[in-house]
């Protein structure tokens, strides 16, 4: 796996694949950060994609002095302010209240949630769908079975496998960290 610095060099040399690697590496962290400071779902996807477009467009002018990751957070934050300005009336945190980039603690949180999403993404399509219906839409197993036209038994098996996979995918250390931070960080 290329480190960020190598990716950045390749991006500067016009390598779009490097941009994709960087995008996939930080998408969830940026998305979750945007969600945390913006409080609205609408336009978040655009805001995140815009970061990478800006990075690409200005790749010859940008000087990275801290890290490419911090730089992405700065672009994102500024992009969200612009978005807010364009859509008057949407409540965003006070400009001064939002740090230029998330502090280390927040970044670690984002990092761990991002890993959770990355794990979620690796689930087979149907298994993920079943889990999402159960977790995010509070559907009962019977409702899920009806919705997806499968047996309740299948739902049961798939749910077990989904949790087993997530549990195995996130190493014990990271689960402990998730446990430690869960009281400090709420996305809703």
């Amino acid at each position, binding site marked *: 796996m290329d480190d960020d610095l190598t990716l950045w060099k390749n991006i500067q*040399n016009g*390598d779009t694949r490097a941009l994709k690697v960087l995008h996939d590496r930080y998408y*969830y962290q940026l998305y979750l950060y945007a969600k945390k400071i913006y409080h609205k779902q609408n336009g978040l996807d655009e805001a995140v994609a815009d970061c990478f477009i800006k990075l690409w467009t200005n790749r010859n002018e940008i000087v990275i002095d801290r890290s490419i990751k911090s730089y992405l957070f700065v672009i994102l934050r500024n992009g969200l302010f612009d978005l807010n300005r364009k859509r008057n009336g949407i409540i965003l945190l006070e400009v001064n209240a939002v740090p230029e980039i998330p502090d280390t603690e927040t970044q670690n949180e984002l990092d761990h*949630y991002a890993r959770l999403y990355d794990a979620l993404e690796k689930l087979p399509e149907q298994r993920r769908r079943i889990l*999402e219906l159960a977790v995010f839409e509070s559907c009962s*197993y019977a409702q899920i079975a009806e919705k997806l036209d499968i047996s309740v038994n299948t739902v049961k098996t798939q*749910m077990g496998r989904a*949790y087993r996979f997530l549990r195995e995918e*996130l190493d014990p250390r990271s689960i402990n960290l998730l446990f430690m931070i869960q009281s400090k960080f709420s996305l809703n």
Partner: protein
Amino acid sequence: MTDNFDSKWEIIAAKIHGELSSDEEAIFDQMMTDEANLYGFEKTQIIHQNLEKTGPIAANGKVKSWDRTENGIRTYQFRWVKTVLKYAAIIVVAFIAGNQLRPSAPPEKEIRYSEITVPFGQMSQLKLSDGTKVWLNSGTTLRYPEHFASNQRYVTVIGEAYFEVAKMANKPFTVNTADMKVEVLGTSFNVLAYTEDVASSVTLVEGKVVVRNKEGEAIAKLNPGQIATKKQTESNIEIRNVKTAFYAAWIDGKIYFDDEPLDQIAVKLERWFNVDIVFANEQLKSYRFTGTILKNKPVDQIMQALELLSPISFKHQVNATGRDKITIYRRS
């Protein structure tokens, strides 16, 4: 209590989602007497809680976001081309050319000529009225008629241009440069004739061309894959076989070197890619290289291309704190 791993996870998941039957509740309680199971259950519960907190990310959010990014980049590149075209359009100047522009053409009705000059650092592409495609490199001027005469097609190039000439029997296409004329039928070729360069050249990719001197005498006939180079101070012309892809490559945003020593090429690469290049073998510095550098590609790809074309090998040391170092060795 079950030993089956799958059913154990089914029970844990069902417990979390309140889907256990009373029989299963009993199994669950039994399971939890085992400390390892209890630990696993607690951790899984945390995963569930965290999932609930984060909320759903639209399915394939990452994929969609990348699609959007990719489109954004494309739009940007498209805008860039549009800007160049707009710019190019401003400096297209239509004028009436005098006879001196077509010295060997029979006098005809006045032909309206256009002239296009591409700014340095940019490239341009255009299609002439006969369907011929022309790519113009940085700083190149092309003079061409808005409509071609009935029996001749004439254009003039100062700088570098790549032509894909539309085939037309009995209507030869001629490119004039300061020092020579290239007469073709249907063909693709590259003309290099910057006024400040001491030599001009024409590289034939496919088809047939005849190279003439200023006076119109045929001095060379080229086959595909040949380059004809003429020094301004000399009347004879030198013909060599080359890999034409390298000479025409700039139309894709590449830059080629013609018989340039490796140490000079290294200096340019160092500048473009922010690397240090050192030679393990002094003799290699004077190895002359002819070929194309892909300016928008990673430096390793360029070094690999150099490896293919010259007797070198290289080693790339990534340096996290400063410039990467590339060492060039003689290939054994």
